[in-house]
């Protein structure tokens, strides 16, 4: 991880340099540096306090009450940890967490395999690779909601293009399976769209990783007569690993929060087979209007993402240091 090393190295002299010329320059300009620093940083902090932190604190407070947003005038009762206890013992919520884990696992597995392979192939630098890289990128720039909505059309049993192509290849009649309506296929319909959309992202990060490997390492391996297979496993993979792990981290966090695509493709159904954590949360908060309990669930989710991400980042740092 060359880049991160240099940022760390640069930081220290920068800080040392910051203190020396400042006193010399301060008298020249109108505002002191300290004033400018605060002037520049305060608006952002203020905005984040108002729209991120204050609501978060509010949510924490609500999570200890029986507040319901559709009855704002009802008497607010503090119920202590009851909401948390209920969320953690609710079997529906555990099923939703399992569904989420299932999605996160499969989407990351597929996206990493396909994304890394594509990056590796693009790094062979065939003619026109820059153009085709841009083409491959397009899906990840689009709105998951708007495109997910259109995938519903592609998944239609009789008329949908997806079913038609599958039946063309396999010979199964196109109206014999329903991607969105059947319990066994609905999760896969979402995994397919997510993989279609986000593989390019994993590919880009892997590509950055592959391109950060200096040529002289391969040249040295070539001198030592290491086979291409050997080079791949003992140079390419280990050196690109921190990047692959980063891609996994980002996709993991994003897919843990997955909402719009599921909402539009299946809405959590059929039954609750595709009901991921975000959908359950939305139901609790905006359909059942159990705001207090939903807040408790939201905070549990946040702590879970935050905790898992931190454990993962520590593992990542160990890999980098090797």
């Amino acid at each position, binding site marked *: 991880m060359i*880049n991160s090393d240099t940022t760390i190295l640069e930081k220290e002299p920068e800080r040392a340099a910051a203190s020396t010329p400042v006193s010399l320059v301060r008298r020249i300009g109108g505002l002191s540096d300290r004033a400018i620093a605060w002037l520049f940083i305060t608006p952002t902090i203020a*905005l984040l306090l108002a729209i991120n932190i204050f609501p978060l604190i509010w949510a924490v407070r609500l999570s200890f009450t029986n507040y319901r947003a559709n009855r704002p005038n009802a008497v607010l009762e503090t119920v202590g940890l009851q909401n948390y206890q209920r969320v953690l013992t609710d079997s529906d919520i555990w099923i939703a967490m399992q569904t989420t884990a299932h999605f996160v696992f499969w989407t990351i597995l597929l996206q990493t395999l396909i994304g890394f392979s594509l990056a590796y192939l693009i790094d062979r630098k065939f003619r026109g690779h820059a153009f085709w890289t841009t083409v491959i990128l397009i*899906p990840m720039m689009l709105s998951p909601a708007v*495109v997910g909505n259109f995938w519903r*059309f592609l998944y239609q049993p009789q008329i949908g293009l997806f079913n038609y192509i599958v039946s063309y290849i396999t010979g199964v009649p196109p109206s014999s399976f329903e991607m969105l309506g059947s319990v066994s296929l609905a999760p896969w319909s979402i995994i397919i769209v997510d993989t279609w959309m986000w593989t390019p992202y994993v590919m880009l990060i892997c590509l950055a990783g592959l*391109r950060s490997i200096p040529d002289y390492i391969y040249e040295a391996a070539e001198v030592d007569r290491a086979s291409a297979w050997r080079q791949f496993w003992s140079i390419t993979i280990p050196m690109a690993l921190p990047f692959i792990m980063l891609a996994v981290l980002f996709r993991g966090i994003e897919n843990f929060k997955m909402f719009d695509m599921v909402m539009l493709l299946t809405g959590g159904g059929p039954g609750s087979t595709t009901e991921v954590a975000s959908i359950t949360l939305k139901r609790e908060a905006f359909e059942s209007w159990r705001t207090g309990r939903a807040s408790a669930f939201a905070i549990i989710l946040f702590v879970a993402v935050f905790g898992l991400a931190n454990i993962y980042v520590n593992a990542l740092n160990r890999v980098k240091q090797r």
Partner: protein
Amino acid sequence: MSNATSAHSVVEPSAATKRIAGIIVVLYAIITMVPLAWIFMTSFKSPPDSISYPPKLVFTPTLEGYCNLFTTRTRQTPEYIQSLGPPQSTCDEITRSRNMVIAGPSNYWPRFTNSMVIAFGSTFLAVFLGTLAAYGFSRFRVPLADDLLFFILSTRMMPPIAVAIPIYLMYRELGLSDTALGMILLYTAVNVSLAVWLLKGFIDEIPREYEEAAMIDGYTRLQAFRKVVLPQATTGIAATAIFCLIFAWNEYAFAVLLTSGSAQTAPPFIPTIIGEGGMDWPAVAAGTTIFLVPILVFTILLRKQLLRGITFGAVRK
């Protein structure tokens, strides 16, 4: 990505390897484009063509989808339609051929305008605030800077629905529910974390000697920021702006929960387009196409900045 062009001497892949790699990548690219091509084609189909079996590759293009997208229509008797004067427009003609008349404009255009106002407004604010804050973090000693930066970034880990619960309550109290201002503030807050993070990286790369030289020449710190740092950071600012814009343009979860009427953006609106007796897929496809085109154009025009921003942002974290 700048060192990508360093010459592969011994390690240059063979011509055959390159060809095979090329074929696989191009195949993948074509397959991923099929759904998008299908959206585009469907938008020019008539409703019967769009739901025919087997799916039609060859068809007579019509603007019916676009007409249906922008208008609301009512069914009328043929006698009534005959009694009307000659059709005013192509859409009028198409609508009448289906025994209907145009009743008025649909909500698509107002929703699209909302998307533009909210996306551009929040992008401008996020980049403006983000640039200032990034400069502050990059150049001055801010107490607890690392903690603050990490905290700023960690706000993005929250599931949007979790954020939406208290925001919903707060906006209801403040009268910001279903207003463009409320959405602009919310998207700005979400984007500013990314903006600060990306821009700090870009500004860190600009040598501080430039500003110091300018200040010795008599510039104030603010002038040096405006005339030396900002021009140097243009690429970074552009890359950041695209990311903010794409996020705000595509966002659905907040939009569907916090807007319903006058401030609703296009993403929650498009799935609600339905025709008489079932989905009007050509109209949905038309709405989707119009909605996707700006992002497609941005992606293609600004691909270099985008590539740099994605990898750069990822690698720094």
